[in-house]
């Protein structure tokens, strides 16, 4: 594949690539927001469990967690369709340049800011992440031995 022809072909669809890039960035930002919304709700839910406020915990599960989950699923669907749009652009270029998609893909990716890896902290607030690690993901003592100890008092 001739590099000059490739760059001309890519330049011809540059608008499409830029649009795709912008849409992907917006979608990623949306996913970031919904992941944060759910994780925050999970921490709140855990706090309600600590306080034995079962009804509030249940209400939170029916409200914020559900809306966050639906938003996340919609945005992940959008991300999948953005992946299809990228595949179409690469396929068109492949046809024009009569080469393999593997040769074109790195050239398209080089123009996409949304294809550059970023640290996970971009998607989750570090303080909140630490709280989740500490409150939810940290191993807890098994419930049943403690339950057995408590119940022998009676």
């Amino acid at each position: 594949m001739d590099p000059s022809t490739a760059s001309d072909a890519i330049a011809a669809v540059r608008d499409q690539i830029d649009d795709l890039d912008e849409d992907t960035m917006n979608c990623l930002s949306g996913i970031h927001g919904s992941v944060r919304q759910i994780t925050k709700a999970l921490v709140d839910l855990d706090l309600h469990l600590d306080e034995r406020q079962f009804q509030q915990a249940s209400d939170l599960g029916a409200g914020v967690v559900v809306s966050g989950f639906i938003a996340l699923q919609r945005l992940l669907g959008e991300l999948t369709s953005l992946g299809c749009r990228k595949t179409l652009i690469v396929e068109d270029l492949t046809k024009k340049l009569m080469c393999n998609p593997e040769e074109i893909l790195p050239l398209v990716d080089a123009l996409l800011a949304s294809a550059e890896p970023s640290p996970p902290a971009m998607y989750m607030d570090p303080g909140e992440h630490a709280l989740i690690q500490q409150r939810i993901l940290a191993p807890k003592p098994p419930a049943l031995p403690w339950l057995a100890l408590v119940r022998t008092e009676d």
Partner: protein
Amino acid sequence: MPVDPKAAADAVAAVMAEIDELDQDAMHGCSGVSQALGELSKALEHVDNSLAERLFQQAADLGYGSVSAGFIFLQRTLGELNSLETRKAVIVQELARKLHCAYEDVAPYVDAVMQSMLPRPAQAPIDAVGFRANRKKD
């Protein structure tokens, strides 16, 4: 009119088997919710990591797989917790009817004998420890 503690203790003792069963189910329910919270949080962390690596297809697949599974698990365990609350409300209502008092007056006596209600709020409306000790003597 406030409920007589002795009458409350007797009425609670009469349905103790029911309360114990509810208590044990609540413990299991809480442990289920905690497990579901952990699974959903882990799944969201994987989504976050996949997005950071720009593995979009993997992130979308996680949405179908572990995120959905964690979400459904959480909703089911929360549903269980909800029905436990309803069961408790039925017990308290029955006691309130027997004792001719308000729901709120008898609810603390039921809470006091339930281990799943611990840790209790800093200022308990009744002497839960004393109530338990008296119940043992009876």
